[in-house]
C-alpha cells in the first residue's frame, strides 16, 4: 500500500459543488506544549480556497487565523492564499508552511462556542514558519492519505516566540465536502512512533444513518486497518480535563488508549443549512504505557 506522488497534486474534481481537496497538518510540541492545526480547503467547483491556522497555547489560550478567497487550483507546488504560503518541496517528503498576518485570540479554548467572545477577541499578529519532513511513508485511505511527520520551526504570537521540534500528522483528502451527521476522528502519535489515525462517521440514509469506519494503526512500522472506533467516557469530575478511553478494534486485535483532553475548542458553524459543532481537542494519550499526543475531533 503506497501513496503515489501524484496524490500531492490537485485531483480532478467530482460533480458536487461542495467537492473539496483538503490538505492538513496537526502537531504537538512537547517542550513548549504548543499544539496546532493547519488546514487548506480548495473547492474548485466554487472557485474558492480557504486556509486556517489554529493554535492551542499552554495557558489554554486559543489563536486562530482564517482566510477564504477566490482561488483556482493549478499544478503548482505552491499555494498562496492571503498571508499564507504552503509549498510542497518534495512530494510525500518535505513541505514548508508560512504565515504572517492577523489572527484572533481567545483567553480560553472553551470560549470558542461563545459568539460574544469572538467579538471581544484580541487581534494578534501570528507568524508561522514551519518546515515539515516525513517521518515515514504515507498510508493511503479512501480518496485520502495520512503521514507521520516531524515539524521544526517557530510560531510567534505578537512577539511571544515558540520554538518547535514537534511530531505530528499530515495528510490530504479529496472528496464531496458535505458534512457527516456525526463523526469522531482520532489522530495520535506516540514516542515509540506508534500511530492511530481513525474516523467513524454517520451519514443520513434510508434506515436513519449509515456508520462507516476508516483508519489505521501503525505499530513497529506495521500498518493495520481499523474496523471499529469508539469512545468510553470516564465520569466527569468538576475541574478535571475531559478523560476517556479510545477503543480501537482491527486486524491486530483491540487497543485501549487512555486519553485526556486539556484543551477543547467547541467550534460552531453552519454548513448546508445545518448548524453543527466541531469540538477540537488536544489529546494527551497513554497507549500500552507509551505517552502520546494528538487531536480528537467530535462533530455533532
Amino acid at each position, binding site marked *: 500500500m503506497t501513496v503515489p506522488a501524484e496524490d500531492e497534486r490537485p485531483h480532478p474534481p467530482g460533480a458536487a459543488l461542495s467537492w473539496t481537496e483538503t490538505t492538513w497538518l496537526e502537531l504537538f510540541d512537547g517542550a513548549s506544549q504548543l499544539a496546532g492545526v493547519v488546514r487548506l480547503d480548495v473547492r474548485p467547483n466554487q472557485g474558492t480556497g480557504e486556509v486556517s491556522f489554529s493554535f492551542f497555547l499552554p*495557558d489554554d489560550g486559543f489563536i486562530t487565523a482564517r482566510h477564504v478567497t477566490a482561488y483556482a487550483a493549478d499544478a503548482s507546488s505552491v499555494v498562496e492564499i492571503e498571508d499564507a504560503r504552503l509549498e510542497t518541496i518534495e512530494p510525500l517528503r518535505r513541505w514548508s508552511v508560512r504565515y504572517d498576518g492577523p489572527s484572533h485570540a481567545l483567553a480560553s479554548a472553551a470560549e470558542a462556542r461563545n459568539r460574544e467572545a469572538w467579538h471581544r477577541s484580541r487581534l494578534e499578529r501570528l507568524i508561522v514558519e514551519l518546515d515539515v519532513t516525513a517521518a515515514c511513508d504515507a498510508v493511503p485511505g479512501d480518496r485520502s492519505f495520512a503521514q507521520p511527520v516531524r515539524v521544526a520551526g517557530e510560531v510567534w504570537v*505578537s512577539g511571544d516566540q515558540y520554538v518547535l521540534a514537534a511530531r505530528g500528522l499530515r495528510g490530504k483528502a479529496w472528496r464531496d465536502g458535505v458534512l457527516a451527521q456525526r463523526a469522531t476522528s482520532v489522530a495520535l502519535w506516540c514516542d515509540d512512533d506508534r500511530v492511530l489515525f481513525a474516523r467513524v462517521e454517520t451519514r443520513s440514509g434510508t434506515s436513519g444513518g449509515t456508520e462507516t469506519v476508516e483508519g489505521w494503526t501503525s505499530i513497529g512500522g506495521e500498518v493495520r486497518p481499523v474496523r471499529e472506533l469508539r469512545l468510553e467516557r470516564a465520569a466527569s469530575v468538576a475541574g478535571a480535563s475531559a478523560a476517556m478511553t479510545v477503543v480501537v478494534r482491527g486486524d491486530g486485535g483491540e487497543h485501549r488508549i487512555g486519553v485526556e483532553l486539556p484543551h477543547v475548542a467547541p467550534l460552531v458553524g453552519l454548513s448546508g443549512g445545518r448548524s453543527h459543532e466541531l469540538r477540537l481537542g488536544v489529546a494527551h494519550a497513554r497507549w500500552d504505557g507509551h505517552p502520546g499526543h494528538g487531536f480528537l475531533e467530535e462533530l455533532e
Partner: protein
Amino acid sequence: MPLFVILGHDGPDALAKRPVVRPRHLDHLRPLSEAGRVVVAGPLFGDDGKTPRGSLIVLEAPSLDEARALAARDPYVVDGVFARHEVMPFARVFPESTGS
C-alpha cells in the same frame, strides 16, 4: 481623562519570559481595556519584524501618579520582562475628528 504613554524596553531575558508572563500581563490590562481606557497597546519589534523589543501602551489614567502606579503593577515590570520603562503624558492629535 488624560492620556499617558507607557513605553517598556525589553531586558535580555525578555524573549524567554514573555510567553510565560504574558497571560498575567493581559489579565492586568483586560479590565482597563474593558473599561475603554486603553487607546492602543502592543509589542514593538526589531528590524526583523518579529522579535520583540518592548511594548507600547497608550491609556487613560486620572493622573501621572496613577499611570505610573499602573505601570509599576504590570507583570512585565514586576517579573522583569522590561529592563526599564517610561511613563509620559500624551496628547492625541491624529486621527482628526470627522465631526460625526
